């Protein structure tokens, strides 16, 4: 038994220490946003965020997550209240089949958390480990830029109000 903290909630997990995080997320916690693609850490569709960094959950045994915070796409927003990255991907229609998109969004989210205004080149370099076979790369790039803008305005507006008071 170990405690796994996912999207702010503690879960008691009964799994072998070498079980990949992806299996626990999907099979035990029924969090299905992270996808099984290659199972070898080569496609990126299983990407989640661990302590602020993008991690490939299919090659991450749960024993490495003791005391760490796991965030999956479900932890960012809901259908009713999507997070900026989710809104941006929808507004740019960045998904075609959509299989890679959850992983794309998680890696982009991790990038935007440490670099709020990435250049095109930085986004390309960051998303390199995540593959998309439909070919919506240009839309994904636009979506990440749009998410950066959305986060920017979301952060600025309360501050603007404060300074106005």
């Amino acid at each position, binding site marked *: 038994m170990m405690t796994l903290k996912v999207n702010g909630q503690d879960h008691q997990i009964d799994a072998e220490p070498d079980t*990949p995080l992806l299996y626990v997320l999907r099979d035990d916690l029924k969090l299905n946003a992270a996808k099984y693609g290659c199972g070898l850490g080569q496609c990126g569709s299983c990407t989640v965020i661990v302590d602020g960094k993008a991690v490939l959950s299919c090659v991450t045994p749960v024993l490495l997550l003791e005391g760490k915070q796991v965030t999956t796409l479900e932890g960012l927003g809901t259908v009713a209240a999507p997070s900026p990255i989710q809104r941006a991907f929808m507004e740019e229609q960045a998904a075609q089949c959509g299989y890679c998109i959850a992983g794309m969004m998680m890696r982009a989210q991790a990038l935007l958390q440490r670099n709020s205004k990435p250049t095109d080149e930085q986004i390309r370099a960051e998303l390199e480990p995540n593959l998309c076979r439909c070919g919506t790369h240009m839309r994904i790039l636009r979506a990440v830029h749009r998410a950066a803008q959305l986060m920017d305005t979301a952060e600025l507006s309360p501050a603007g109000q404060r300074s106005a008071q």
Partner: protein
Amino acid sequence: MKKKSGIIGSVVVALLLGGAGMAFAIAWRPAIAAIDPPKPQSFDASLVRRGRELAALGNCNDCHTVRGAKNFAGGLPVPTPFGTIYSSNITPDAETGIGRWSEAAFLRAMRLGVDRQGRHLYPTFPYDHFTNVSDDDDRALYAFLMTREPVHAPPRDNQLAFPLNQRVVVAGWKFLFLRPGAYKPDPTRSAEWNRGAYLVEGLAHCGACHTPRNALGAEKLNAMFAGGDVDHWRAYPINAQSPAPVPWNADALYAYLRDGFHSDHGTARGPMAEVVRNLSAVPGSDVRAIATYMADVFGAPSAEQKQRGEAALAQVKSAPAATTVDSPAGSIYVAACAGCHESGRPPPYGGINLALSTAISGSDPRNLANIVLAGVRPVEGERSPIMPGFAASMSDTQVAALLTYLRARFSKQPAWTDLGNIVAEARRTQTASMETPADARNASAASTERAKP
């Protein structure tokens, strides 16, 4: 008495003058007249093509190009125990490159390590090897470089303390360590062996990384190819002391150098990645010659080495599926490594069985730490291996535990020591660009790195 001291005095003066004269003769090199940059059309196309292949054999682009900048425009910081030296602009730009260098000036730089103006070049430019290159090959290299796009990129100032920042000091280094002159073939050896020796000891300058250096930064002639250091990586011993589990032979070397991987040895990454990328674009006969010569340098495997190789290959064949998990590090191996490294798929798409890994059987754990943390990134336009890095999911302690486990399970060598510091240092150097905090990732940071991973 007076007469005697007079004699001593004149002897001292004569010695001083003689010494000064000798020092002058050793140190002073005249400038060679500047020329107007020759027009690209003035060079014979077949000579330029030959020069392109030679430049690839010499790996010139690797040190003379930085990521995100133009080819051959220089500016790469090369850290040395003596300070940081920046590579120069070898495009034919008239002001900042070698546009005003005549062919004679270029030949002198290759043979003697002196620039057009007569200044001594630091031996980070490996003229201790390039002195072996023939005049004909130097002419082809000159034709190739002078037909590249001229790039205006002023040289960066070296960071060297006095007296090393005085280029005249280099004259003393050359007096001790540079043996000028083109390669002399060994008539008792085959033409292929001699071709390989000419390339390895000359233009390809393999020893610059693979031979250890003495306190003055010169290659130790009594330890040729015994292993060296480059950019926080270990350049493995490539002589009889090779730690490779399966002994190298000419065929394996040829395939590895040509394709960048071999199923008994794995893939060439780290600073070797650019070398094999370049060697994929040169005549196969030259790679074959290098392999022939280097197989001789490795020597025939000893009985013990042969046995070690057979044992490693047997371990691969009989390896049980990774189900026995006896420790946290073993669990990490099963979940993070075995999926590729026990897949049985050949490289570059599958990882080699780690019983064959020189990174694990070698004495220096840095290469393994680098790869585990940073992974292997795909290279644009290449059939290159990829591996995810684990810097984001494993702590230094966990990486160290994994390395200890791999060493114990896959080699017969004694456990590594000081892994905590080594892993921390690997994280610092290998993942700098991944770990950069908010907004600090910019072009100027990238421009201090080599063009390719």
